[in-house]
């Protein structure tokens, strides 16, 4: 099959109505916060949701790796991986050979004769990935494949996935931009069951067009209209920046990272909405902007306080 695959998934009971497109042989990252509907979209595509509608039609030969792995508990690891080849008519010995090859590719060959119940979380995830790949899926669906794993297992599995996918059309649900950068070529940002924004990974993450996509990319979106010398922000402030690539008359945006924002005596006036711990820094969220500050150096405001933010670095503006 060539050409992009486009599916519209509708699950009214979960308020999901999302259209996703994945180019044949490429990886799409379905990026969204918890509860955005990522799992619902994947389960619907896999045919595991009875009350979901997929148009034009559910993809044949889809394989979903869920967060829990969901291996067959009464079978050995090898029989789990050989399950789909066997179900599609391969002889037992041949199916076991295929299964063994996939177990080797996910670095789990030594687990072949273990019982599923004896596996650790990381091992079970590897086996579940091998089982899905062994089914030669036309569409591979990975639901948060690194959730709940320790850092080392997650890194190792991410690396072997980058190799093993090898031309398999894949949709991978994730809430981290790391997975999108490491594995995907395109992103669909899911918000409240709808696709808020979609496009190539670097474009969406560096030049997001929606506040939600910007937040997923760890940035804050400032919007306004271009003016000689910069952008007149919706807050009324003028942000001096490069506006060459903004079309005349279009609305413009700048994606700002909170680490490039400081709290000053004057600047963009804002009201504090929340404080968020970020390692040794504190992110001060305002209604329009956010700033990462060192709580040792800067007295922390309280929610509701007025503050002034100053943007210290930014990229060039782009059209919305």
């Amino acid at each position, binding site marked *: 099959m060539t050409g992009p695959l486009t599916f519209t998934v509708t699950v009214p009971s979960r308020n999901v109505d999302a259209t996703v497109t994945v180019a044949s042989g490429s990886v799409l990252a379905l990026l969204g916060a918890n509860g955005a509907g990522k799992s619902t979209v994947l389960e619907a595509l*896999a*045919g*595991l949701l009875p009350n979901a509608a997929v148009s034009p039609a559910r993809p044949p*030969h*889809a*394989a*979903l790796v869920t967060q829990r792995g*969901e291996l*067959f*508990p*009464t*079978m050995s690891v090898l029989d789990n991986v050989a*399950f*789909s080849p066997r*179900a*599609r008519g391969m002889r037992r010995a041949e199916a076991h050979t295929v299964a063994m090859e996939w177990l080797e590719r996910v670095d789990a060959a030594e687990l072949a004769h273990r019982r599923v119940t004896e596996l650790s979380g990381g091992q079970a995830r590897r086996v579940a990935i091998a*089982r899905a790949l062994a*089914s030669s899926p036309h569409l591979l669906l990975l639901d948060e494949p690194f959730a709940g794993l320790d850092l080392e297992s997650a890194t190792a599995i991410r690396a072997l996935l980058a190799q093993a996918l090898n031309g398999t059309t894949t949709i991978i649900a994730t809430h981290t931009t790391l997975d999108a950068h490491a594995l995907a070529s395109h992103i669909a940002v899911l918000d409240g069951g709808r696709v808020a924004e979609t496009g190539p990974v670097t474009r969406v993450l560096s030049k997001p067009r929606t506040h939600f996509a910007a937040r997923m990319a760890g940035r804050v979106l400032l919007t306004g209209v271009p003016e000689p010398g910069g952008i007149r922000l919706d807050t009324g402030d003028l942000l001096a920046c490069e506006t060459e690539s903004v079309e005349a008359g279009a609305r413009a945006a700048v994606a700002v990272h909170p680490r490039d924002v400081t709290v000053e005596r004057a600047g963009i006036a804002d009201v504090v909405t929340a404080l968020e711990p970020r390692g040794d820094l504190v992110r001060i969220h305002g209604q329009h902007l956010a700033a990462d500050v060192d709580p040792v150096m800067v007295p922390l405001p309280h929610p509701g306080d007025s503050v002034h933010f100053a943007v210290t670095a930014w990229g060039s503006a782009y059209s919305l």
Partner: protein
Amino acid sequence: MTRSPVPRWVAALAVAAAVLVVLPVAGILARVDWSEFGSQVTSPGALTALGLSLRTAVVATAGCLLLGVPLGYALAVMRSRWRSVLRAVVLAPLVLPPVVGGLALLYAFGRRGLLGSVFNHFGITVAFTTTAVIIAQTFVAMPFMVLTTESAVAARGTRQEAIARMYGASRSRTLWTVTLPALGPALGAGTVLSFARAIGEFGATLTFAGSLEGVTRTAPLEIYLQREIEPGAAVALSLVLLIVAVAVVAVAYRPLTRAAS
């Protein structure tokens, strides 16, 4: 010493309950004439009855597996509002007086029964044959299989089956490779309970199959008969059935207690 949270009066009632069950068992043990026990349980009549009981109960248990498992599975996954009605009817033999069950069987499979008259037309007689014994035992024992299967299927859901289907398995393949292995412990418990119920069956058998030596006179019927002729032999045979019952329960409930600990 840890203080038990159980009020004393509850403990007293628990002891009373245990005595109620243990005392009759002790009563049987007290009445067994151990010097005669060997010859009593190996007498031709006793051996014939025990052999018939064993054979019919094994076949009836197989019937429960073959029919009760699909019925329990269907009850667990069906969504119709008739489900509770169907369940009530299907499980009725569990609480029905066995004599009533026997009469019901007679009106279904007897010479003039609903289906029996059809059989009769083809020269097949069911009532008062060994087949009737097996049908009676299956009738009373199958609810155990239906119940254990239904609760096991309901407890695990059908998610694994959906995944098997996603991976291209046919419905039958999914049943054999995914569902039945997962139901293994429940099916084991259901089998043992059904066997125990079948081998102890009395009332429905007597009503529907009668008491012909070697044909329909199973061990419980033999015991009832011997009780008046030779009470010692009845007690000896009773002990055999008692041992079977206790062994069966010990085996059947092991998985449950292990899971709880």
